[in-house]
């Protein structure tokens, strides 16, 4: 199979999307051809030629698809039905909220894109607590094991060319601990920048562009 793995995160390094795509790539044996695209550079339409599967991973931005990625998807829409008519589309969307279900609107947007591009929808994984992707190993036994299990199921669907129900996956830890860790993290980063919690909460001057 020819698999196109598209990282839709704008981050050059350290993105949760890259962690999830690396994990999925690790499930594909040497008989498969992997083509990695994404980052800040828009993929060329030719990258998708003859693809059997497109696996798109991106972070949730304001309940939806990041604007720069949306632009790339829209630009590719007319070409894909010609270049990759057999391709099925799979997706991993992660959000910083704990609840994976908050990615559901973005998954719907992607399904609508898929329909308009003339591609077949395969399956999606909504990931909550995406901020933890780099904080713990993605594997069995740890707090991210529900996410690893969801990605295993997604990989099985991709490699069999199958379809499936979307999966919601979030870390196996109490939500209040996730919130506490996130708040400590913001405070710590603020302090590194010389800012107190009160500084981080300050309003901007109203209607006064500088």
């Amino acid at each position, binding site marked *: 199979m020819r698999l196109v793995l598209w990282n839709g995160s704008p981050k050059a390094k350290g993105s949760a999307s890259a962690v999830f795509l690396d994990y999925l790539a690790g499930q594909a044996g040497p008989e498969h051809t992997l083509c990695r695209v994404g980052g800040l550079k828009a993929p060329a339409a030719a990258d998708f030629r003859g693809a059997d599967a497109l696996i798109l991973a991106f972070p949730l931005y*304001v*309940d*939806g698809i990041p604007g720069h990625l949306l632009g790339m998807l829209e630009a590719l829409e007319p070409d894909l039905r010609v270049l990759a008519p057999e391709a099925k589309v799979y997706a991993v969307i992660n959000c910083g909220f704990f609840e994976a279900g908050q990615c559901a609107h973005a998954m*719907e947007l992607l399904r609508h894109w898929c329909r308009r591009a003339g591609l077949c929808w395969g399956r999606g994984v909504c990931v909550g607590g995406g901020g933890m992707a780099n904080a713990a190993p993605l594997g069995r036994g740890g707090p991210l094991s529900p996410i690893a299990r969801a990605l295993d199921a997604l990989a099985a669907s991709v490699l069999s060319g199958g379809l499936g129900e979307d999966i919601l996956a979030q870390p196996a830890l109490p939500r209040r601990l996730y919130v506490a860790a996130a708040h400590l993290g913001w405070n710590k980063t603020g302090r590194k920048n010389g800012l107190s919690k009160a500084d981080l909460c*300050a*309003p*901007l*001057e109203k209607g006064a562009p500088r």
Partner: protein
Amino acid sequence: MADTVIIHDLPPKEASRLLSALPADSFVFNALPAVNHCMGCFDCWTKTPGLCVIRDRHQELAHALAGCGALIILSRCVYGGLSPAVKVAMDRSIGYMLPYFYLDRKRDELHHQPRYKERMVLRWHLYGDATREERRTAEALAAANGVNLLAKECRVSFYPAAGDIPPLGGAV
């Protein structure tokens, strides 16, 4: 303070028709040409609170949003959501909220705490071709945006084309 903020991607002819009779305290942001997109650095939360660190015309929008009474979005409907240019402007605006979470008990979901005490009215005017399913997605998506922006009211309207949108004077 700009009480009403308008973000749009309208063709120039429709922009002048629709936006000429706005209240004096309105701030109009043309999303086209698209501003630089969000880089996911979160510096708008931890380095320059409330303001994206990318220095371009989006900074005017961030200041206009501060404590605004209404956010009116006029956008081409794309897959049941906003157009790429309008979405980029919204992506760059997350400094409107704080990084800190609160638990919305009614929905059993985390959302971001507010930076401003004022609560906005959120209106989406979406134009262009949209299927019934895409409209349903847009309604749910706008409602979710309304929750995340702590809007006191949220409504979505659909129009076949930008030329079908009625002048905003009264609608604002």
